[in-house]
């Protein structure tokens, strides 16, 4: 369901000075906000230059390190998306997105560094980004660690999918893939699982070593569309299928499609207040400093 919103919130024109960013209401505890940019829609050099001014010197350096114009542009858009989105959730004052500071947790997961940002009020915001060559996404929640991963639906796997899965996924997941009728169906499900597993590891924020892909199974939740659940397999069992510890405690998963071209997996930590409750995901497409478009609001049980 596509809803275009040309609401009073929008300022379509941008002036010579940096326009104030249109503020946003914080997500509620049960909501995830998912923002995405389609790089092909951002062509204006002056707009890209403006984005560049928002980045820290370190971020600009990292953008410059990318090999090739397209990769540079996407790296620039990714940092711009994070900075402008988070700045807009500052409900009290207009915050210059360039003044946000970021740090990494001890495992390397990026976080907002509220203490070092002058004029910021600390918000209990969590965010995570993911990008492919043709789509850049940022997920935002309040109070709940979040991980997201996006992949092009058409992404080709160079290796045989089942061989790949046997190497990296759990036995249950391999069996699931093996039930698919043809290679194309297997490839699609493999990609979906990859995004879900990546989203989980990123939500955990402890690096890949803490949760190798073959130590947990993700499967679709019967009776839901796009709902998934997590089962941790004990590493010690010889037969994971028999001794799977059903441990869904704490993590909610959803899988969506964005722009008809990408799978997007979102994983958030269930809080005690909302445990087991539905998860609402609000998806918006954006061009920072230019426009927003509400794409969908969906409830996942």
């Amino acid at each position: 369901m596509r809803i275009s919103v040309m609401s009073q919130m929008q300022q379509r024109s941008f002036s010579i000075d940096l326009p104030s960013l249109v503020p946003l209401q914080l997500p509620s505890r049960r909501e995830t906000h998912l923002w995405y940019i389609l790089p092909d829609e951002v062509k204006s050099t002056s707009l890209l230059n403006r984005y560049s001014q928002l980045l820290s010197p370190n971020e600009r350096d990292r953008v410059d390190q990318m090999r090739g114009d397209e990769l540079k542009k996407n790296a620039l858009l990714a940092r711009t998306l994070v900075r402008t989105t988070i700045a807009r959730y500052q409900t009290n004052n207009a915050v210059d997105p360039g003044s946000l500071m970021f740090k990494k947790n001890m495992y390397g997961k990026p976080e907002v560094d509220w203490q070092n940002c002058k004029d910021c009020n600390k918000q209990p915001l969590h965010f995570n980004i993911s990008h492919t060559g043709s789509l850049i996404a940022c997920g935002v929640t309040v109070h709940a660690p979040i991980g997201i991963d996006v992949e092009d639906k058409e992404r080709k796997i160079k290796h045989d999918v089942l061989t790949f899965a046997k190497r990296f996924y759990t036995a249950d997941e391999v069996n699931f893939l093996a039930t698919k009728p043809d290679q194309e169906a297997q490839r699609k499900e493999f990609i979906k699982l990859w995004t879900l597993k990546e989203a989980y590891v990123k939500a955990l924020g402890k690096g890949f070593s803490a949760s190798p892909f073959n130590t947990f199974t993700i499967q679709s939740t019967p009776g839901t569309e796009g709902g998934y659940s997590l089962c941790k397999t004990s590493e010690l069992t010889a037969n994971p299928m028999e001794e799977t510890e059903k441990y869904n405690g704490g993590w909610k998963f959803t899988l969506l499609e964005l722009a008809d071209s990408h799978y997007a997996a979102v994983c958030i930590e269930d809080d005690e207040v909302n445990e087991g409750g539905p998860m609402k995901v609000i998806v918006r497409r954006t061009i920072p400093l230019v426009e927003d478009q509400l794409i969908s609001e969906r409830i996942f049980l």
Partner: protein
Amino acid sequence: MASLSTNSLSFRAPSIQSSRFSQVLRKPSSFQAISFGSFQSLKSLRLQISCAAKPETVQKVSDIVKEQLALSADTALTAESKFSALGADSLDTVEIVMALEEKFNISVEETDAQNITTIQEAADLIEDLVQKKPAA
């Protein structure tokens, strides 16, 4: 045929660790100039020893990376080239590692696979694993 001695593996060069120590011991005069903490001075002795992997390994890794990431043949890659700077995401990295496993007939732990960030690191890991392979 091959089972009893580690020398039976067909390395193209002596294993790096043993050659480092044996070559150093044979040159006592230059030994004084070397501190074990700094290997830069070793290069001036023109020995085929260093902490880094062989150029051929680096080249093979570069070829596989180019193929996986669909880079043009004339893309200049160096040992320091970072996978992420070339546009590789984690799925690409894992596919690259699988291709390297096939090419070099080694087996990489998943956690090692996810931690590779440059061509140099991939090449070093490969050589480390090739060296550690048990006799066939």
